[in-house]
């Protein structure tokens, strides 16, 4: 069956969207899902019925994504919702998040796993505070691909001038704010009527680029790593069985690079070196592991390796090992971050005690202004802090690798209270 084979070759793109109902975000997602046949009849019927019973005249597609009772009752998106759709070319995961400043932490969460961000701009209003906010979060979370979808083009007579003004305003803003977005693509759309969402619009002949979906289907998916070869060890597999009396493999998800049998590897933090004898995926040996495969490797020498250690290719770029870090944090909970307090820091497969030594500055996420003399951080605050850990961490700067550059703070209530991105060079 040809269709099956095609499906087996598909790639996966994870993207994030932020915004409120007014931006047309739900309409856009609804259209992507509906036009790719990912909304089913019974789901649509349920939403139509729910819209009617709430007295909405039009079908409210937000009801599809707002999954919790509280969200439906209040008519707002509170939490991150994950939506799925596929075309014959790619599978997509959307992390759909609310857009207001009081939900910064949800936007940060949605962006943390995304390869790409779709930022919606209302053609009538141009660049607004929330455009800056969403761009900043994409930049902070290391998203290298951004699509600025200029929506509601139908309400500005599909004007090329309006579109080009927004493009140049955005470029100017991006530069002024100092965002590090690698690639920004602008697409004029009308989510309501479907112009340039799935099919190219005939009403904007001056635009010769791809539709949003065409773009999402073809954009190269950034590997998001520039850090040599890294395998954080999660688990040691030791069957101790009659059939495999001495077998011992080190299991983990390769988060950067490639690994082959015969490669020299260095174990960090110990610095001991050995050689890969085989790479296992289930009961099969594979000739090469490529990030982000989850594999198990067997090694030539019997050296002490346990969860939290990191295997690296000896002849490639090495990660850092340290106890003092400069970290960009987003605070996630009501209990404030306080300097001098101890937290449990989870980073890759490591878990250590950490202390926040100082808050260098807080960032106003709408203006990028740096605010000094801050003693504590509240929920949704973003700041640059300095931390010290009780044990050394094997790390890379976040911009080189997300897995080895990210961490979370856990407090004595067991809750995850903060998210951090390592900035150390």
């Amino acid at each position, binding site marked *: 069956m040809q269709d099956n084979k095609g499906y087996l070759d598909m790639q996966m793109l994870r993207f994030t969207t932020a915004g409120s109902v007014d931006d047309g975000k739900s309409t856009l997602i609804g259209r992507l899902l509906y036009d790719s046949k990912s909304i089913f009849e019974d789901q649509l019927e349920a939403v139509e019925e729910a819209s009617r019973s709430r007295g909405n005249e039009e079908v409210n597609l937000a009801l599809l994504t707002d999954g919790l009772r509280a969200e439906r009752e209040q008519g707002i998106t509170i939490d991150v919702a994950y939506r799925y759709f596929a075309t014959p070319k790619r*599978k997509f995961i959307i992390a759909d998040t609310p857009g207001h400043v009081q939900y910064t932490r949800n936007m940060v969460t949605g962006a943390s796993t995304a390869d790409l961000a779709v930022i919606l701009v209302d053609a009538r209003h141009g660049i607004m505070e929330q455009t800056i906010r969403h761009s900043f979060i994409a930049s902070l979370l290391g998203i290298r691909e951004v699509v600025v979808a200029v929506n509601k083009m139908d309400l500005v007579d599909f004007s090329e001038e309006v579109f080009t003004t927004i493009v140049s305003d955005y470029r100017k803003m991006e530069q002024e704010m100092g965002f590090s977005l690698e690639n920004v693509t602008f697409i004029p759309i009308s989510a309501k009527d479907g112009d340039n969402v799935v099919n190219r619009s005939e009403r904007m002949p001056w635009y010769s680029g791809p539709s949003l979906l065409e773009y999402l289907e073809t954009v190269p998916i950034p590997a998001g790593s520039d850090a040599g070869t890294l395998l954080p060890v999660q688990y040691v597999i030791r069957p101790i069985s009659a059939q495999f009396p001495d077998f011992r493999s080190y299991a983990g998800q390769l988060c950067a690079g490639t690994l082959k049998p015969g490669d020299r590897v260095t174990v960090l933090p110990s610095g001991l070196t050995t050689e890969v004898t085989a790479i296992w995926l289930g009961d099969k040996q594979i000739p090469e592991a490529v990030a982000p495969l989850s594999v198990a490797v067997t090694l030539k020498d019997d050296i002490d390796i346990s969860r939290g250690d990191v295997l690296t290719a000896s002849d490639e770029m090495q990660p850092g090992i340290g106890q003092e870090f400069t970290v960009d944090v987003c605070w996630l909970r009501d209990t404030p971050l306080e300097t001098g307090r101890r937290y449990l820091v989870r980073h890759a497969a490591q878990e250590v005690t950490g202390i926040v030594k100082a808050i260098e500055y807080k960032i106003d996420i709408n203006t990028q202004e740096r605010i000094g003399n801050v003693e504590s951080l509240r929920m949704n605050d973003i700041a640059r802090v300095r931390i010290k850990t009780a044990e050394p961490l094997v790390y890379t700067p976040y911009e080189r690798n997300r897995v080895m550059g990210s961490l979370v703070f856990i407090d004595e209530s067991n809750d995850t209270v903060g998210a951090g991105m390592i900035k150390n060079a």
Partner: protein
Amino acid sequence: MSKTLTHLKELEAESIFILREVAAQFERPCILFSGGKDSIVLTHLAWKAFWPAKIPFRLVHIDTGHNFPETLTYRDELVARLGADLTVGSVQESIDKGRVREETGYNASRNKLQTVTLLDTLAAGKFDAAIGGARRDEEKARAKERIFSHRDEFGQWNPKNQRPELWNIYNAKKDVGEHFRVFPISNWTEMDVWQYIYQEGIEMPSLYFTHRRKVFQRDGQWLAAEPAFIPRRPEEEVVEMDVRCRTIGDVTCTGLTLSRAHSLEDIIAEIAATRITERGGRADDRRSESAMEDRKKQGYF
């Protein structure tokens, strides 16, 4: 540099990573095994994650007593092949002990009662994590649930105050008496599951393929007349049809699909063409708009 893996490889890698985190972070984790395709895929992934060691999770089956016999045969063969340990939590026992009261009437189902049996079984086995095959595309309350999902000491889920979950960092910290539900295939769709089964050549229970069965129709759905667990109204006529299960649960709430799918390729083609979600055939979800959220809060799967 750009990514090169296929989406199935990437999904598999993510799920194996999560299963290994469970093994590393919990003391007594188990897999909730229903005999349905999602828990079969989950068990296959666990086998792959820890080979050549045995799966470090006990399989737990919550048995409503209303089974398709094919499910139990498949379960027992799988357990034997993997050398896994099996715990069965029996809803019938919960009824006999007076822990739950059986629903009566034509739409009676033991589906809701399972929650009590499940929580009792987890407590008796001192399980601190129960790994489930739920997927976020199945239902809108599930679309919001974390991969490591905390349960308080009453086994309840608090959807409004879930722990933040970023990147691939999973926090399993908890107090005594609390536990977690973990969903390693959260990001898979029904189509991904079948394509993966096809790619991996996983053997499936015969119920998923079209077979001749005595059935009857209720509210536009085909239900099994055999095994005879559902009380029929006098006007509900039993006929023989070619059907298959799109999901497998308790007989009383498993809708059957008229189908000609005799192979995995046929099933994949059928799903590609279909316009109804798989849970559309589940009587348990059709009870109200928030049916799933309400059951999950109480401790359901």
